[in-house]
């Protein structure tokens, strides 16, 4: 009982999602800065940002719905934390039953969907455009992402198996690119393209609500990176798991630094017409048992 409670509240649940998520974000920012030949902020900068955000005033715009604006960040954060409970990290207890992968996918999806709804809730033109883009992006990346998760599931019978990356390279690529779309990091930072639509869906958010969204983003990063580490690079004890997730984090950071932002129609075409055929190859291979 103790370990169950521990896994929900401390690791890999709530506290880990917040703290390690922020830490990952800090590492990403630092590594990005070094790649861009500058010093960058200290790696605890996301914490400081969060603390400052939480002290700010909550503003509800005239056209917005206060209830929805409060609900969205909470659900987005809670769903992301729930999703991490389905990832078997280094022997910590996780929720395991027949088809839990689909519940995991559902919670991840729900978290992102509430990010999308948040823009409509504000009634701000930038928020609405951001929300439309977010939904279009979900439609784009969700298909190859789900196909690659199913491929991995078929191969491993939904248990932890090592190094899928060599057996199913396309599923690996599909998973990583899907995660990039989900997290909205370059070249897929289309819904929050600041040069075009300020901050996208989150334009009108301030104070504690924005703080909640920051937490949700950190939790999403944590769950995506650890899911990728476990599913793609295999299990191991805690230290090996952390090293593996840092490798995934590095891959994400590296990819985010070498591309310009895509346009939403390009991104859609890329996911559906370039990536889906590739991941389908691996799905067929997994079905026929060729590996």
């Amino acid at each position, binding site marked *: 009982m103790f370990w169950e409670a521990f896994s929900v509240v401390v690791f890999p649940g709530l506290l880990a999602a917040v703290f390690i998520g922020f830490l990952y974000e800090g590492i990403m920012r630092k*590594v990005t800065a070094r*790649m861009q*030949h*500058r010093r960058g902020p200290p790696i605890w900068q996301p914490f400081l940002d969060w603390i400052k955000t939480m002290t700010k005033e909550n503003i509800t715009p005239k056209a917005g719905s206060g209830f929805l604006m409060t609900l969205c960040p909470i659900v987005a954060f809670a769903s992301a934390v729930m999703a991490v409970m389905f990832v078997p990290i280094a022997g910590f207890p996780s929720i395991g039953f027949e088809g839990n992968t689909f519940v995991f996918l559902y919670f991840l999806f729900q978290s992102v969907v509430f990010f999308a709804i948040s823009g409509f809730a504000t009634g701000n033109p930038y928020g609405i455009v951001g929300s439309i883009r977010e939904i279009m992006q979900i439609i784009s990346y969700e298909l190859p992402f789900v196909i690659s998760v199913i491929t991995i599931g078929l191969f491993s019978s939904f248990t932890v198996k090592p190094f899928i990356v060599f057996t199913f390279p396309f599923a690996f690529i599909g998973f990583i690119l899907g995660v990039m779309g989900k997290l909205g990091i370059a070249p897929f930072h289309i819904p929050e393209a600041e040069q075009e639509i300020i901050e996208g869906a989150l334009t009108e958010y301030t104070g504690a609500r924005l703080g909640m969204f920051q937490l949700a983003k950190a939790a999403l990063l944590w769950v995506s990176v650890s899911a990728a580490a476990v599913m793609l690079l295999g299990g191991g004890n805690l230290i090996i798991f952390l090293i593996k997730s840092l490798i995934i984090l590095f891959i994400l950071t590296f990819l985010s630094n070498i591309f310009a932002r895509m346009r939403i129609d390009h991104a859609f075409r890329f996911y559906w017409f370039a990536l889906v055929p590739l991941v389908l190859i691996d799905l067929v291979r997994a079905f026929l048992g060729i590996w």
Partner: protein
Amino acid sequence: MGVAIEVLKRLVSRPVTTKYPDAPPETPEGLRGKVEWNRETCIWCKMCEMNCPANAISIDKEKKIWSIDTAKCIFCGRCNEVCPTKPKSVYLTKKIELATERKENLRDVYEEHHSQEKGQKEQKT
């Protein structure tokens, strides 16, 4: 692909940015910084006052007061250029960190009775 290689190269090289307030910036010779005045050589010809495009310099010949409002100064160096004395009575230093908390502090007033000690000045508030 050029960017990918460059990105990895930069990851292992030292950053080019400096820790500015801790590490002072490198300034080249002849930088146009804060304008200062040397009363020893001044002949009170008022050339600097007349030629200042921003009207930052004001001179009171009777009371022997020379003052400059750095808030108005545009650092063009025209005062130094037109100064007829040798060495120049008005000169540009390399001081660039001029921010203060109060606007009055930007006004430098050089008065006669402080002339015994060279370079000393009084800041009126």
